[in-house]
């Protein structure tokens, strides 16, 4: 075989190259576009994350917790060059994956609102099943937007409507934010004052799908279901318009034409006529057309928003940022990449697990988050370094439980979730990016009984086990369990020496404080 291809072979390679490019996996194409997005990207970018960094990050992103010390040791020892890809596949197949995705989408869809009409357990089960079965995202969206709550089996999907009390303005705004990448809230009373693309007509075009919808029998009872009248038009005026000209609109997705609606035949407007204690069913339902309109191939913002949100989930920041500000004056950081992801997602029939996997396989995702010394300027949207994200409330709960030797099995960790949601969950109805640290959160960590209960020695937990180990073995076990890495030489020396000095009887309590110091460090608090 010649060491270099001759001219004929080179020609053959050139002929086949386009085909090879077309078969190139998505994650490779993603990396190419990211590299093209910054001069000297390849030269300046951080190297791949080391084993510990990668394993912790992937475990948190894909299963919402940290790896056990046994998993860490096994991963470090594994010499298989394909171990990272295998780990990603193992994590995606684990029960932690649907749990993690369910928790993430709970926050996206419901933003910590009170559970008023769909109990938490039923909702979480519904979401977990969705991701266990890897239901296509468009089908999932259609369920959320069309469930009417009358069938007990599908009622949880109606939570988006029901636990917003069916309030049309709230639903219009949140529907736009979650599925269409647009926060049209300010366009309720007038064209958006600062975003030229967001018009009042767009707001009411969405609302027209649900303006006939109401909660039956009323908005007070917890067992209410969604019902719809056969009449009612959407008319709006701008508060800025002195002439108070009234406009009307039928159901319409932003940028698209209004729906063709059948003319109601007099006397035949209802399949089930409204009467006392009778839930009316109109012959023509505007709400039933909402799901199809949102997820229609003619509404490309749906796929665009979906991939942007999934990208943001894994990489910490959307290609359009903020994720609900998709408009001409806020272009995506990598427009070609966003288009590619949207196209491929649709071609793969909205396969969420596939997309998440492709993103996780990218070099961009697997890059170290340590800023190389030579890099003085790190723009937030060029992916020169790996993602750095604060842990979500649920991730903190599970990670803390796992780290302190209480495992992240649901039975042990689930009760913690409520406590962490209370302290770390964002305000109800507000988007939560988890970037602030309040005094109450810090005090919860410093002095609160929940964290103390986990870190202090208790039968079989980490502090208990560490306290019983010979001092020179404790440091490794401590750092592997909590921070998914081995201690540095200095750290090991100091921990060993300190433990040796401590009387054996006091060691478990002392280890409890060591564990506390590690779980409250920034290194633990962040997904890096």
């Amino acid at each position, binding site marked *: 075989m010649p060491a270099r291809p001759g001219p004929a072979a080179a020609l053959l390679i050139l002929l086949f190259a386009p085909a090879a490019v077309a078969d190139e996996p998505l994650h490779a194409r993603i990396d190419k576009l990211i590299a093209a997005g910054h001069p000297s990207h390849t030269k300046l970018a951080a190297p791949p994350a080391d084993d510990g960094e990668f394993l912790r990050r992937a475990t948190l992103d894909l299963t919402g917790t940290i790896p056990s010390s046994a998993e860490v040791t096994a991963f470090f020892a594994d010499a298989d060059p394909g171990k990272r890809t295998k780990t990603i596949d193992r994590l995606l197949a684990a029960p932690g994956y649907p749990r993690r995705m369910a928790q993430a989408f709970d926050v996206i869809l419901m933003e910590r609102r009170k559970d008023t009409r769909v109990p938490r357990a039923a909702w979480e089960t519904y979401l977990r099943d969705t991701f266990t079965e890897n239901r296509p995202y468009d089908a999932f969206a259609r369920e959320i937007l069309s469930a009417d709550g009358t069938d007990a089996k599908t009622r949880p999907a109606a939570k988006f409507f029901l636990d917003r009390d069916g309030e049309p303005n709230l639903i219009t705004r949140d529907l736009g934010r979650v599925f269409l990448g647009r926060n049209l809230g300010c366009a309720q009373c007038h064209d958006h004052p600062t975003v030229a693309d967001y018009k009042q007509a767009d707001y009411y075009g969405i609302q027209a799908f649900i303006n006939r919808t109401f909660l039956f029998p009323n908005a007070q009872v917890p067992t209410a279901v969604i019902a719809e009248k056969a009449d009612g038009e959407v008319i709006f005026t701008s508060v800025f318009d002195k002439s108070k000209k009234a406009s009307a609109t039928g159901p319409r997705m932003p940028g698209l034409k209004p729906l063709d609606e059948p003319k109601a035949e007099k006397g035949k407007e209802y399949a089930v006529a409204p009467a006392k204690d009778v839930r009316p069913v109109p012959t023509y339902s505007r709400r039933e057309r909402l799901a199809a309109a949102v997820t229609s191939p003619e509404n490309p913002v749906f796929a665009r928003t979906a991939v942007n949100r999934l990208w943001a989930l894994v990489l910490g920041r959307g290609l359009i940022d903020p994720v609900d500000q998709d408009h001409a004056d806020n272009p995506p950081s990598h427009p070609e990449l966003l288009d590619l992801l949207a196209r491929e997602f649709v071609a793969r029939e909205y396969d969420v697990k596939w997309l998440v996997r492709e993103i996780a396989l990218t070099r961009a995702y697997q890059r170290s988050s340590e800023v190389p010394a030579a890099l003085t300027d790190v723009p937030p949207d060029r992916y020169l370094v790996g993602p750095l994200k604060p842990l979500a409330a649920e991730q903190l709960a599970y990670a803390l439980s796992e780290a302190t030797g209480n495992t992240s099995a649901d039975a042990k960790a689930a009760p913690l979730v409520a406590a962490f949601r209370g302290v770390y969950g964002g305000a109800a109805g507000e988007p939560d990016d988890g970037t602030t640290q309040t*005094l109450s959160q810090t005090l919860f960590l410093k*002095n609160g009984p929940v964290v103390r209960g986990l870190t202090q020695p208790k039968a079989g937990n980490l502090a208990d086990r560490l306290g019983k180990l010979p001092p020179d073995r404790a440091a490794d076990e401590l750092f592997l369990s909590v921070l998914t890495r081995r201690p540095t030489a200095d750290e090991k020396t*100091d921990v060993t020496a300190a433990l040796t000095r401590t009387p054996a009887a006091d060691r478990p309590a002392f280890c409890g404080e060591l564990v506390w110091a590690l779980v409250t460090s*920034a*290194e633990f608090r962040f997904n890096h």
Partner: protein
Amino acid sequence: MPHADYACGSAAHAVSRRGFLATAGATAALGTAGFASPDSTAALARNQKRVLVVYLAGGVSQFETWDPKPGTDTGGPFRAISTSVPGTQICELLPHTAARMHRLAVVRSLNSTTPDHAQGERVMLTGRRPEAGIEYPHLGAVAAKMLGGERAEMPGHIHILPGGGGGRADATFLGPQFASVPVPDGRPPANLLRPSGLTADADRARDALRQSLTDRFSRSRRSAASEAYAASFAQAERVFNRADVFDVDRESLKTAERYGRHDFGRHLLLARRLLEAGVSYVKVSHSNYDTHHENFDFHIEQLGEFDRPFAALLDDLSDRGMLESTLVVVMSEMGRTPKINERFGRDHWSNGWSVVLGGAGIKGGAVVGRTNANGTTIADREVGPWHLFHTYLRAVGLDPERNFHPNQRPVPVADPRASAISEILA
């Protein structure tokens, strides 16, 4: 992650990991830990300047407060009443404040250009028009840094708000230790005290290990969020050391009565305690004034809650000799429309509304600017939030023409195109 140069070099962060592990297990007490005694703190507080902002959230109506227009098509049903300043009248809904008007200056010609809640709040608290590429720090962060500094015992920027609420990244390039610390509902924070079984030594020691791990992490992975996280522990420590300040129940019954037992009264009383303890900036929010519907009824209710405690606060500051060193500002994010809408409401308005100042460096009784007869335009001396920002700084003895230096770039403390409103400076 912007590679900003946060000013994080305080001594508290310098405790080393080796230090912790070297002394771990030792039982020697550390004595009184070297905290300033209450007396010296009080003395310090009297000489230092501080700022109190009473924030009437939602957009308070200037017609129903500082710039009434009775008997006009825009004036509404309320009377204007005389105040302790001859020739100056305010709305009848503020009788107690009216009697203390000689301590206050009014600016009636403010054009804040943004009739919007979030943006309006931003321009009012930063004194800057929004600019691409830079986020300016809020007044509280500036005050905390320039009046209190890095070594301040108490957090320098505190925000007392009625309900729940997280912190905000409002210190921007000044660094997270100057970001607002929210005190929801004015209640002392939960979990403030050390759990039993944890000695002060052990607490200090474990915190040193936490800090050293965080330092190592931060060497190569700094971000605004991780910096804020690290700073929050130092802040929690400071708050813990002065936990008593948060306990409003330590005030006499008589004082509590003067301020009033309802939320806003309690919050203003807590503000006075915090200011007295040396906090450089306290903002107390009063909710809510965004009265698009039944504006007059709601202002009766809200101003009824505001008037007496605010008057009590002015008296209290004066009695304690704190008024000369405390700048008091009453502001909102905007005013309300002269036009009364169909539902007896007033809508958003930034074209000519009022802000009130008092205390340190302010000429009591001064009135600057005029709106026309029915409040639809500014008639004289139009000013913007940038002019007010200069004025706040000058009032507490700071130089608004100085620069900050984030990333070694000079950024003026206040908008260089504006200047202070000299008519209200003493």
